[in-house]
């Protein structure tokens, strides 16, 4: 049998007939993507509300007595865990990954659609388990999102009875869901690209999502193992992470375990997790900048290698989260070095983004505004990362608001700005309608300036030494009155930013029904997902034949061409196309 590439062979697609199989138990990657996206955003709203509750307590400690210390810790924990894993990871990989990968590489669907569907339903189960912990005795766990033992499973920590177990089970189910999806994304990118779509012609969005998925497949195992071991410590009474310890005046049964082991396992997952969230954002923002600046991305190859390099390096920096954990100080030297080396590929990416904008024909559309804002917040968060990457500078800043400001800037605000930008950018493709430009602009400016006014002052609080994760700061001598007042101001900004998101939801919902009908390619984008015969794309994505790719995804403003972009499926002999195929 002559070798026929699999992507060219006849494929069996499930053809849904009823509403149930078309929209609920769907195997279409686009429907699954939207299911993932909506679930992630819904659970993200819960986390947003939790953060507002925390800010109310911090800003006006005496006014709002509805939050008690144990609830405060539960909110901290759930806010962190939901935002990092159940919102950002799920949205970038399950949402955007599912939607964009097959369309951008020219496939009809993911390689294993059934598994893909299963991935979403497992994810939903994990979210339900997590949410159910709000309703059990003792509430959700209040161990902090890092779930450090021994305190995570000791009596006295909120939710030490049922909450922590539900959290661990939910994480395990999430990891199963992610693995099923992740295998699909990686295999699709590697094995199911259309004719002419070489790896080095893929849009950077696909590169970012692909590399992040590989990181996830290698990093989540560490979280799974630590979750299993901690569940054993809690349920069976083993002592993997538990040293001999006295609790409530009595010696516990635990003996001889190692709490630092958990930290190593957790951060072996936890640091790549930062890049699982960041790399898709890097990729997507590159595409947004290039498209809306009508200019090819600067240094495409370097951008790809930077993504891969950052991904590789992210596995050998984990202990920079543990400078104060009591590990051998010589490790600090090693991990500080590797951490600072990551700044090199990251800086390459930032320079390339800026150089892409240089002398570009910049259209300040809503997605572009979000993309440019991302450059600001990311540089900001990246620079404070250099502070925290150095052991001597990190030690006094450890566990202060400086850390909070740093990671919210770099992996909170920055990826969320990209999420918004990406939603606005692909909204016309997903729904066939345009969003409302004015509401979008309002949403952008309020969110961007608002988040800056939340997190910029926190750096100052951190330098003052204001510790994080404290319920209240009254009566602490070194904290001046100005810091207390600043906290109130931050809270007001946080409430405004939270309320601003209502504009976003109103815009999305209103435009879905009443928005202007969108062109198939409103931005004049060269990449493949805008060249589908139908908008929104139907099941199977392409017409009778898969598209053929002749060029990279960044042919903008090519001299001599008729239009200011040449789509990827335009043949070289036909560089003045009037009709998109």
């Amino acid at each position, binding site marked *: *049998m*002559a*070798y026929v*590439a*699999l*992507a*060219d062979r006849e494929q069996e697609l499930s053809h849904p007939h009823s509403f149930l199989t078309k929209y609920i138990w769907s195997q279409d990657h686009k429907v699954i993507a939207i299911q993932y996206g909506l679930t992630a955003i819904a659970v993200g709203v819960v986390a947003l509300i939790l953060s507002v509750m925390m800010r109310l307590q911090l800003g006006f400690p005496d006014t709002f007595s509805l939050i008690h210390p144990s609830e405060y810790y539960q909110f901290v924990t759930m806010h962190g865990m939901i935002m990092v894993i159940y919102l950002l990871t799920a949205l970038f990989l399950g949402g955007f990954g599912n939607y964009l990968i097959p369309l951008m590489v020219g496939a009809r669907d993911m*390689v*294993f659609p059934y598994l893909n569907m299963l991935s979403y339903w497992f994810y939903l189960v994990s979210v339900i388990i997590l949410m159910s912990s709000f309703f059990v005795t003792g509430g959700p766990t209040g161990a902090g999102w890092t779930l450090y033992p021994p305190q995570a499973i000791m009596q006295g920590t909120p939710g030490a009875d049922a909450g922590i177990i539900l959290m661990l089970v939910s994480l395990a189910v999430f990891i199963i869901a992610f*693995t099923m999806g*992740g*295998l*699909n994304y*990686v*295999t699709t990118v*590697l*094995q*199911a*690209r*259309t*004719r*002419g*779509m*070489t*790896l*080095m*012609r893929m849009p950077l969005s696909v590169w970012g999502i692909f590399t992040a998925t590989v990181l996830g*497949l*290698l*990093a*989540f*195992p*560490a979280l*799974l*193992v*630590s979750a*299993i*071991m901690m569940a*054993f410590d809690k349920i*069976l*009474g*083993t*002592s*993997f992470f538990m040293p*001999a310890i006295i609790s409530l005046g009595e010696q516990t*049964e635990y*003996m*001889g*375990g*190692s709490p630092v*082991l958990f930290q*190593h*396992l957790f951060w*072996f997952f936890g640091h790549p997790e930062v890049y699982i969230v960041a790399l898709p954002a890097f990729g997507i923002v590159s595409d947004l900048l290039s498209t809306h600046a009508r200019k090819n991305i600067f240094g495409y190859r370097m951008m790809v290698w930077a993504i891969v390099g950052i991904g590789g390096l992210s596995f050998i920096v984990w202990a920079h989260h543990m400078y104060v954990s009591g590990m051998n100080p010589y490790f600090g030297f090693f991990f500080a070095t590797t951490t600072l080396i990551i700044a090199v590929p990251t800086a390459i990416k930032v320079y390339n983004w800026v150089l892409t904008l240089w002398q570009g024909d910049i259209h300040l559309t809503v997605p572009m505004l979000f993309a440019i804002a991302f450059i600001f917040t990311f540089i900001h968060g990246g620079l404070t990362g250099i502070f925290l990457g150095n052991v001597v500078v990190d030690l006094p800043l450890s566990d202060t608001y400086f850390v909070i400001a740093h990671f919210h800037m770099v992996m909170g605000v920055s990826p969320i700005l990209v999420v918004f930008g990406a939603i606005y950018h692909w909204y016309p493709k997903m729904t066939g309608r345009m969003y409302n430009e004015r509401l979008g602009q309002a949403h952008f400016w309020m969110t961007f300036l608002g988040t800056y006014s939340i997190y910029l002052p926190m750096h100052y609080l951190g330098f003052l030494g204001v510790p994080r994760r404290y319920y209240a700061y009254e009566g602490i001598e070194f904290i001046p009155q100005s810091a207390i007042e600043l906290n109130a101001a931050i809270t007001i900004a946080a409430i405004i930013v939270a309320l601003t998101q209502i504009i976003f939801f109103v815009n999305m919902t209103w435009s879905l029904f009443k928005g202007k009908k969108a062109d198939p390619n409103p931005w004049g984008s060269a990449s493949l997902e805008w060249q589908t015969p139908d908008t929104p794309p139907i099941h199977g994505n392409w017409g009778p034949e898969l598209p053929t*790719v002749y060029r990279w995804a960044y042919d903008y403003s090519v001299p001599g061409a008729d239009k200011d972009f040449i789509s990827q499926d335009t043949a070289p002999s036909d560089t003045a196309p009037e009709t998109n195929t």
Partner: protein
Amino acid sequence: MAEQALSNENTLTEGFAGIAEDWSADKQAFHVPWGKAMMWIFLLSDTFIFSCFLTGYMHVRMNTTVAWPFPSEVFALTVFGAHIPLILIAIMTFILISSSGTMAMAVNFGYRKNRKVTAALMAATALFGLSFVGMQAFEWTKLIEEGVRPWGNPFGAAQFGSAFFMITGFHGLHVSIGVIYLSVVAFKVYRGDFDRADNYEAVEIAGLYWHFVDLVWVFIFAFFYLW
């Protein structure tokens, strides 16, 4: 495979340039079926799970405050009056490695499209696997009767029992899933599903999983029983 040879014959570039060329081809990076590619990636991920289990185990073993029990003694059996260390584990290891042999033969016969022999060899592999799980159950029972529990044991450090039940349990789960998986594929082979599709890839994919489970056992055997 012949297919692979065909597609690689024409232009072979040496060194790094060759690697880059292979990887940057369009359509697919590896000339293997989707299912096989996915199984490889899954196994890579699973490798990290077992590595984390084993490093975690080594870490607690080196950190315990109480001496670690001597595995050769704990896992010794008295057979016909002779006290033989690690005898059961040795038999289990032998069986599992033999099952890899029958699996490899099944894959071979699969590519020759020999339906009956393939099915029989896969069934034999599954039976080997089943006997492995059975012996593991026996080992667990024996240790539990001797008082070994996840939270403590009479021989020494409590983490011995914890790590033992966790790691062998997780591996045993893999073997059990493998037995079910192999049985299903063997049944499909026997029914002639793959003859009709003219494609025995599923046998090889199941084989990949099975060999992996065996390989992991070798590491568990070395690090847990022999150390």
